[in-house]
């Protein structure tokens, strides 16, 4: 795609590289649109000043919203597994592969995201370490919420009370982890000044060539070449 710069005769050429399928983007937004109401309705239990919202008829309606959103939230991975099982497996495999570059990424992430020091950032595949950790926490969270939530919903009068209490506890613990993770994810994807393209990619499914080169070198250049380039750059400096 070429873009003519306003008021000049110059044009710049942007090459877009596909990153997500249409279904992936659609399901991501369904996940978002259900996770936020789930999180906000659950957050009420953590905020004593919101107690009036939990009381009486309002509380009953809040619980109903939580349940409806939960069904849609749980449906997302099922629909993905049915419609694009190969894509899901490819992504899952990528989410689960960690290398020494991920240790380096974690070490340099704070100086990078807070102070803009990108020199030491190691090359990353299609999903960087943070994205993979978010994805894994969300996968683990969805499974845990499914098991504990459905048990609390349908097995209350059947299961032993100790088990029920454990379910409540695990549900809450997982909420603390996933909601904190979501806040960080939201900050980096939507608010952080450098990461504007991540929102573009989740909207249009593509990232620019230059963004891919900078942020996902292993994906852009291939693993071997990206590593060689990084080692060379690192030994020079």
């Amino acid at each position, binding site marked *: 795609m070429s873009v003519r710069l306003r008021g000049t005769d110059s044009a710049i050429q942007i090459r877009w590289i596909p990153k997500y399928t249409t279904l992936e983007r659609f399901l991501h937004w369904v996940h978002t649109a259900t996770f936020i109401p789930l999180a906000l309705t659950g957050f009420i239990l953590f905020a004593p000043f919101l107690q009036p919202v939990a009381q009486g008829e309002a509380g009953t309606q809040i*619980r109903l919203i939580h349940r409806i959103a939960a069904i849609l939230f749980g449906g997302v991975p099922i629909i993905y597994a049915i419609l694009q099982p190969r894509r899901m497996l490819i992504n899952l495999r990528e989410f689960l592969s960690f290398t020494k570059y991920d240790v380096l990424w974690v070490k340099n992430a704070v100086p990078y995201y807070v102070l803009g020091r990108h020199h030491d950032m190691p090359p990353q595949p299609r999903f960087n370490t943070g994205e993979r950790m978010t994805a894994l926490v969300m996968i683990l969270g969805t499974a845990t919420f499914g098991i504990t939530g459905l048990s609390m919903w349908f097995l209350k009068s059947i299961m032993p009370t100790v088990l029920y209490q454990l379910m409540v506890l695990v549900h*809450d613990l997982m909420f*603390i982890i996933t909601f904190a993770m979501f806040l960080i994810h939201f900050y980096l994807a939507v608010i952080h000044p*450098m990461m504007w393209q991540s929102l573009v990619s989740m909207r249009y499914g593509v990232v620019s060539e230059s963004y891919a080169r900078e942020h996902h070198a292993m994906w852009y250049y291939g693993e071997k070449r990206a590593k060689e380039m990084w080692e060379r750059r690192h030994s020079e400096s």
Partner: protein
Amino acid sequence: MADRLAMYIDTSKCMACRGCQVACKQWNDLPAYQTEQTGTYENPPALDHYTFTRIRFAEYDDPDRFQWLFLKEGCMHCGQAACVDVCPTAALKYGPNGIITFERDLCNGCGYCSQFCPFGVPHLSVPSPLRGTGSLTGLEGQIELAQYGALDGLTGDVKSSKCTFCQDRTVNGLKPACVKTCPAGALDWGNRDEMVAKAKARVDVLKTQRNFPQAQVYGDTQLGGLGRIYVLKAPPEAYGLQADPKYPAMSTLWQKILQPVGQVAFGATIVGAIAAFFVARRNVHMEEVE
């Protein structure tokens, strides 16, 4: 709490007439329903949303003789009440004089109270045992049933309930309905210390004059002191009571540790992100960013 009130329950005087059950239903406008005879005089089969108190029957083969034991069940009004701690709506509260009060309008039907009570006392309106075993009778029953739809178990549009020591009577200086009606003198109501003293005196009589060597007081020390002080003729286990009921550890873990941890974690994340944004905005040079 010096002015704490309590119910005295003398199982050695109870004759299981169940007048207390009827008085409770009458005062609290609780509907009755058909039940099935299953080989016991106990009726209804368990405490439920419409049954705040009930006489439990137990058979105890003590070394000397056979005993038929009657225990008046209901909310224990614990000094340390897990239901109050886990209730997210403050429908359950430590009320005046140590009574665990229940405000139905505030309840949202989450059911945590029913799952964290060490005695399993609070019950949700659905699913309730009466849906399987019979139907509600009388006008109150029809009104009660009309409030709940077939999908309420699915949507969670339910309410909890439990004995409140007739909070509307006792705050006005009256005795709970069950105490007022008891014809055998097995029930009494008053200052908790006096009720404990009365129970201890009665246990002495049972031990020394009535040949009940295993007689004992129950409820004086358990869970921060219960609001029900029982005079038992036999060990608590013989009545189906836990000798040493425990405050659920999960409640402590949840309310005292996990919830504050969550509050700190959310707060720290939000404050951290805002701070990081302002630092990043100053330090990140977009012209260097691809």
